[in-house]
């Protein structure tokens, strides 16, 4: 044991005396801070934007309440879009679906820059609306990528490890005194393992020390503590993967330069070529979807619904929403075009849901394809695991789309029930609506 401590101690001296390594370590530390700061900045931006929308919504609700009071007191006439009709009252009920950022977002922006995180939901909304597109940003900047912690860990940490390890065992070979070391009753593997362990602990400690303040600042420990622990475990595992690969390189290495060339080639293969190849194969097998099925629903098939006679539409609505059978209008034999027109979004929504299932299913097929290469493509695997923990992966946004759909369904059901029950909306009823979407 004393010998191992001694080796680690001399490794520390070796590190401190190497300006190239200490500068790299410092730069890496700065990159970690920069990456976390970028994540923290976006996390704060998202929170502030969501708060601003919520404040705006409160104002709009207040304005509506005043309008109801003025209508009830006869101060103003009903506007063109009559708020006493459930359809317009619900239309004017601010209902936003938010993808609230996880505090863990500080550690990975993931796919957050490819999707929107707030959406005003109406009964005509769909989960593929254009207002769900990503925030306005420079596409070249997004293509180049953001230096977040995830990037620093996945792509720069191995480079730091290369810098720290490339001459471990190599320098001794360069200077041709490697055999002298093994005269000290230690095997080459043990000697290298001890030295590698020193750098493994050092790299992990550095990452832990630098990330923990950001975990505190963003509030990770107020509910996401387990996620943070899992995140640390992933870091441990990821570093272990690289240290193992580089250990094998150094065990069979022929000097510092030879080891450096092999290490950087492996980095290039794992970080750039293999993910790039999987990306290309997945595009070949599953080309970008132009969403024509969805476009057809939003135009042609919706139009066909609008063209149907009122009587047919009434029957279709009763068939699609059996709960309407018990409403006042269902009991009424006369045709009310206004009620039917205000209910049409229900039928269109059903078409939208069908097509959304098909689209999500085709995306899932592509995801399965990508995941099937995880053994060959560990970087993408770790990348998506971290994105899952930070709630910024494809599935986090799929869940957000699901939440939007639930909200749309809720709006439509409210409209249908209250329209068919011929409810007249007053201030109290409006406040009830507001409560339903909080």
């Amino acid at each position: 044991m004393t010998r191992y401590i001694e080796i680690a101690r001399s490794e520390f001296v070796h590190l401190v005396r190497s300006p190239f390594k200490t500068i790299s370590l410092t730069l890496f530390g700065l990159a970690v801070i920069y990456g976390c700061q970028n994540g923290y900045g976006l996390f704060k931006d998202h929170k502030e934007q969501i708060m601003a929308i919520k404040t705006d919504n409160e104002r709009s609700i207040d304005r509506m309440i005043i309008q109801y009071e003025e209508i009830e007191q006869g101060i103003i006439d009903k506007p063109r879009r009559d708020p006493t009709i459930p359809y317009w009252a619900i239309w004017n009920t601010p209902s936003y679906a938010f993808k609230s950022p996880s505090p863990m977002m500080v550690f990975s922006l993931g796919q957050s820059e490819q999707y929107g995180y707030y959406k005003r939901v109406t009964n005509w909304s769909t989960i593929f609306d254009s207002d769900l597109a990503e925030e306005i940003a420079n596409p070249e900047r997004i293509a180049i990528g953001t230096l977040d912690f995830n990037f620093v860990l996945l792509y720069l940490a191995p480079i730091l490890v290369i810098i720290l390890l490339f001459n471990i065992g190599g320098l001794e070979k360069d200077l041709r005194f490697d055999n002298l070391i093994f005269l000290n009753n230690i095997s080459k593997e043990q000697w290298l393992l001890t030295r590698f362990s020193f750098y493994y602990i050092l790299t992990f400690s550095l990452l832990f020390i630098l990330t923990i303040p950001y975990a505190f600042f963003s509030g990770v420990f107020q509910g996401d503590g387990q996620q943070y622990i899992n995140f640390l475990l992933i870091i441990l595992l990821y570093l272990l993967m690289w240290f193992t690969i580089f250990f094998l390189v150094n065990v069979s290495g022929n000097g510092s330069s030879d080891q450096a060339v092999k290490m950087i080639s492996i980095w290039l293969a794992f970080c750039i070529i293999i993910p790039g190849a999987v990306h290309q194969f997945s595009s070949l097998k599953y080309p970008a979807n132009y969403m024509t099925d969805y476009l057809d629903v939003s135009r042609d098939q919706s139009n066909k619904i609008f063209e149907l006679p009122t009587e047919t539409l009434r029957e279709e609505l009763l068939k699609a929403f059996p709960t309407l059978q018990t409403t006042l209008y269902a009991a009424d034999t006369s045709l009310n075009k206004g009620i039917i027109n205000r209910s049409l979004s229900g039928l269109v929504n059903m078409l939208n849901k069908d097509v959304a299932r098909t689209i999500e299913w085709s995306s899932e097929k592509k995801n399965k394809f990508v995941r099937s290469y995880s053994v060959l493509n560990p970087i993408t695997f770790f990348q998506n695991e971290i994105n899952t923990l930070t709630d910024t992966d494809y599935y986090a946004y799929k869940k957000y789309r699901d939440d939007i759909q639930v909200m749309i369904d809720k709006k439509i059901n409210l409209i249908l029930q209250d329209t068919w029950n011929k409810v007249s909306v007053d201030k109290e009823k409006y406040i009830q609506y507001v409560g339903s979407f909080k």
Partner: protein
Amino acid sequence: MINIILNEWKMLVRNRVFIYLTIFFVLSLILVVWMGIIQNSTQQEYRTNAQKHVRKQWDNLEAMNPHRAAHYGSYAFKPNNLLNSMDGGINDITGNVIQLEGHVQNEIVYSEASQSLSISKFGKLKSSLLLQYVIPLFLIFLAYGSISNEKETQRLKLLIFQGISMTRLIFAKSLSIWIYGLSLLLITIVFQSLLISSDPEVFQRLALLILSYGSYYYIITSLATYFSARLKNNTSALSAILATWILWTIFLPKIWGNAVEKIHPLPSRMAFKAAMKEERSKGIDGHNPTDKRREQLKNKYLTEYKVDSLQQLPINFDGIVMQEDEEYGNLVWDKHFGNNYNILQNQKGLYQVSGLLNPFASLQSASMGFCGTDMIHHLDFLKKAEDYRRVLIKALNDKHAYGGSKTGDWGWKVDSTFFRSVQGFSYNAPKINDQIGHYLIDILFLLWWVLLITFLIKLNTNKKIIL
């Protein structure tokens, strides 16, 4: 000098590993180019089918009111440039579909990146990925020991005693490796041009790509050789050039990319939409009959046609209002979208300036630009799509106003003959001659680096370095 280059090549060719690696590179490049072309043409086929599908729907529209047709609208699908197979640029990130309809300028949506899990942070395995990352790294591996090996084996002293100039030796060594990189580049380009098109525009773009990549390879090989000559041993030379490479390709592009967004910030979507809505509300609301500005327009037309009521007008005033609404909207879109586009172009300009310190930034920008997959080409597509939207909606509004119907006659319909007469959307990518101004700075910075490294070698290397 030619003798040294030939000698270097003889040494390289004698090395079996080098031969195997060269065969591997050539096959990989050919395979990657071929795969890129297949992927591009498959995607293009999907795109063509989607555009045809949408056009067919338009051609077969049942008789309807022109304004309803304006709401029905159309779609523009972003085409892939021929050289997208070489460098995908921003195409995976940006949307592919833009809805063209009345009253609103929409944004492009449905990017490929949003349709699956995140895969590669450096893009698809296209030839640009190999040419930008893999080959330069291989050139570094060939060059970093070119002089330091001679120093370590003491051969350098022998060479110097034989009367060779140190500067000439460094140039010859770096040129021999540069020629190798250039050969790989030319193989890629030749194969690419054989498989795609004989269009002179494509050849012009490929020639510019040769210039850009050729310059970058010169910079990389010369710098690696320079470090090899100046630094004390192989390990130091390799460390220095790898550190530079990492800084150039990994660190600086991301850090500077983030910085330019902070220097020229874009509005948030919320602020952008709110500002447009606010300004839009100051114009005519085409769907609100009680709008005051509509009243003013009505009076203007009544006076012009010398009639007392809208019913007496020989035209349909509703169509006039819709077009007036559209014209006002266009001013608003031009202002706000225009402002965003200006910010984006300022960001790009500032990013390109980083080429002064980082030739890789210039190479990346030039590569995307010459392949027609950068932001400039993307914005051009958006502009052309918007121009088409305006033509389409004006045609529909004019038909509504002057097609023979009367004001308020929303039941009036036009048949599919009219809809078929409206030209479909077609897009031709801009010619590189018209766009070259955007990329001159990239070429200039690459050439600046070529000169800088050449002077550095010329002025800063002498026989003393062997001591």
